[in-house]
């Protein structure tokens, strides 16, 4: 197992290196030059010497390969560059926002699991009944519904509900509080984006639960369990569900890695200052160092998540032995 882990860790290097090359050279394709764009964007007057100075400052006057290796080298010593917008270090900008985004991501995953597994199970054991059709409809609608619109609808619903029941309009607090200081305030703020993101992500997991469970329910040992008189509830919960969880875990794991994509829009709706908003802001403000660093972070999370899923597999299913 340890050998396997080391091997997997080594195998992630080419993918990450490839991602780095891709991101770095994509940024080289910027029409003109970062400095020219920066000054042109500010709208004021500027001359060639200013641009030249900016290029030296950012190190753009050096050969492209030197720039690339310096950028890559920085990752190993924890230097991810300096934001071109705020002039603060990228790590400093990402750090506090990562905590918030991670919390929303975990909450969204919990929401998604709480929706997906019960609904997928009901859908599978009541295959081709009205309840199955409703669940499948809900999950297809979940994939089709943009999470930012769902976010707006949730806010609207909250306003209407609070006006009706409380007599005044209530919207979630905007100021972020740490879960350690004020757990209730923290949850009342973050549960809504978690719901909006989680519902959308539950859709794929629901479908996966349903199809995996349907497959397992056709196995011989399920028939044996039924034949020896085990009640249906136990057959499903004890015998079938556990064995159908492997593909579901893969889906949930990959979705967790991809949650950053969902957060990009959800954080905008709920005005949360997390990684997603930082990403959108850095794209809007032409903050290329920040964009590069964040894209690399997403690739890193994805690769790590894949390893985590593999390890979890071996742990859950002792038949799987990696060598």
């Amino acid at each position, binding site marked *: 197992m340890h050998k396997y882990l080391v091997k997997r860790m080594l195998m992630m290097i*080419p*993918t990450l290196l*490839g*991602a780095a090359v*891709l*991101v770095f050279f*994509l*940024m080289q*394709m*910027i*029409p003109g030059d970062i400095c020219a764009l920066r000054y042109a964007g500010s709208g004021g007057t500027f001359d060639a010497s200013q641009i030249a100075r900016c290029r030296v400052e950012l190190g753009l006057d050096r050969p492209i390969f030197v720039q690339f290796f310096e950028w890559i080298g920085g990752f190993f010593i924890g230097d991810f560059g300096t934001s071109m917008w705020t002039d603060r270090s990228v790590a400093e900008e990402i750090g506090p926002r990562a905590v918030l985004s991670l919390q929303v991501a975990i909450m969204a995953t919990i929401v998604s699991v709480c929706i997906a597994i019960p609904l997928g199970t009901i859908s599978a054991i009541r295959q081709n009944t009205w309840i199955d059709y409703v669940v499948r409809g809900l999950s*297809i*609608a979940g*994939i*089709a*519904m*943009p999470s*930012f*619109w769902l976010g*707006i*609808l949730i*806010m*609207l619903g909250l*306003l209407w509900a609070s006006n009706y029941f409380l007599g005044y*309009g209530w919207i979630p607090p905007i100021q972020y509080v740490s879960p350690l200081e004020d757990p209730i305030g923290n949850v009342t703020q973050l549960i809504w984006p978690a719901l909006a993101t989680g519902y959308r992500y539950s859709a794929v997991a629901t479908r996966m639960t349903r*199809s995996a469970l349907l497959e397992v329910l056709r196995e011989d040992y399920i028939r044996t369990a039924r034949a020896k008189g085990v009640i249906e509830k136990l057959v499903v919960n004890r015998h079938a569900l556990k064995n159908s969880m492997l593909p579901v875990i893969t889906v949930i794991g990959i979705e967790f890695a*991809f949650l*950053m*994509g*969902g957060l*990009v*829009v959800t954080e*905008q*709706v709920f005005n949360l200052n997390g990684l997603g908003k930082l*990403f*959108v802001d*850095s*794209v*809007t403000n*032409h903050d*290329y160092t920040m*964009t590069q660093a964040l*894209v690399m972070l*997403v*690739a890193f999370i*994805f*690769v790590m998540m894949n390893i985590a899923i593999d390890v979890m597999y071996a742990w859950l299913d002792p038949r799987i032995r990696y060598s």
Partner: protein
Amino acid sequence: MTATSTTADAAPNEKSILQRLGRTARRQPLGVISGAMIVAMVFIAVFAPIIAPIDPLQINFADQLVGPTSTYLLGTDELGRDILSRLIYGSRTALLIGFVSAFVGAGIGLVLGVTSAYLGGLFDLLFQRVMDVFMAFPLIIMALAIVSVFGAGTGNVIIAITIPFIPKCARVVRSSALALRELPYIDAARASGFSHARIILVHMVPNVMAPFLIMVTSFVGQAILLEASLSYLGLGVQEPTAAWGLMLRGGAEQFFESAPWVAIFPGLAITLAVFAFNLFGDSLRDALDPKLRSI
């Protein structure tokens, strides 16, 4: 075969198209419904100037944020523009970006995927690794990174959505094409001295049409959703063009309490459009290639 049996055979053949349609409708009712929704959408987009009651760009400060009335069936936005007309014209933006990026992205992916499977060896290995790198990013992150380089606007949005589709399609197509490569008719084609390009394009590509069509359909839905997300973030289609995602930006969020219609209808349009394409893709998959059902 006698003359009588021919006439007996001819009778069902006369109705065959209608019968076949009827059979498809019974087997794939959702497919037919979603197909009809797509046809209706295309119709609305094509005849937008005739269908739309008011000019979608017409700003009317006298009628800001008016609720649904007989003049403005779905109300107006914060600039007094008719929401129904903007939704109708928005279908043009959505379908244009959806179809172009889905077909171009899947088309390039199709040729690359088949080529990779056909050539095999080192090329295939390297190609797979490059695809792995692309797959490490969610669609929207990839698209936003591309927008950050090329800038916003309709043309760049199409590029930003097309590029991430290429590896997704190439992967699926490659796995189908791998099995194809081993078939005797490909050997025969090679033995006949046909060029690689001819074998790939004429002999292999038509045989992986089933996964390709399934991919394209689901890509259109994803592209519409992606375009709406980018436009909502202000990094996609720009004002004053009518686009569903853009309609949810700004006024829709600011005034959603007093004017919920501004926020509700564009989102409904996006959801219905994506829903139709996803459902159609599902039915297409069931009809063409039931083996892919688990995907």
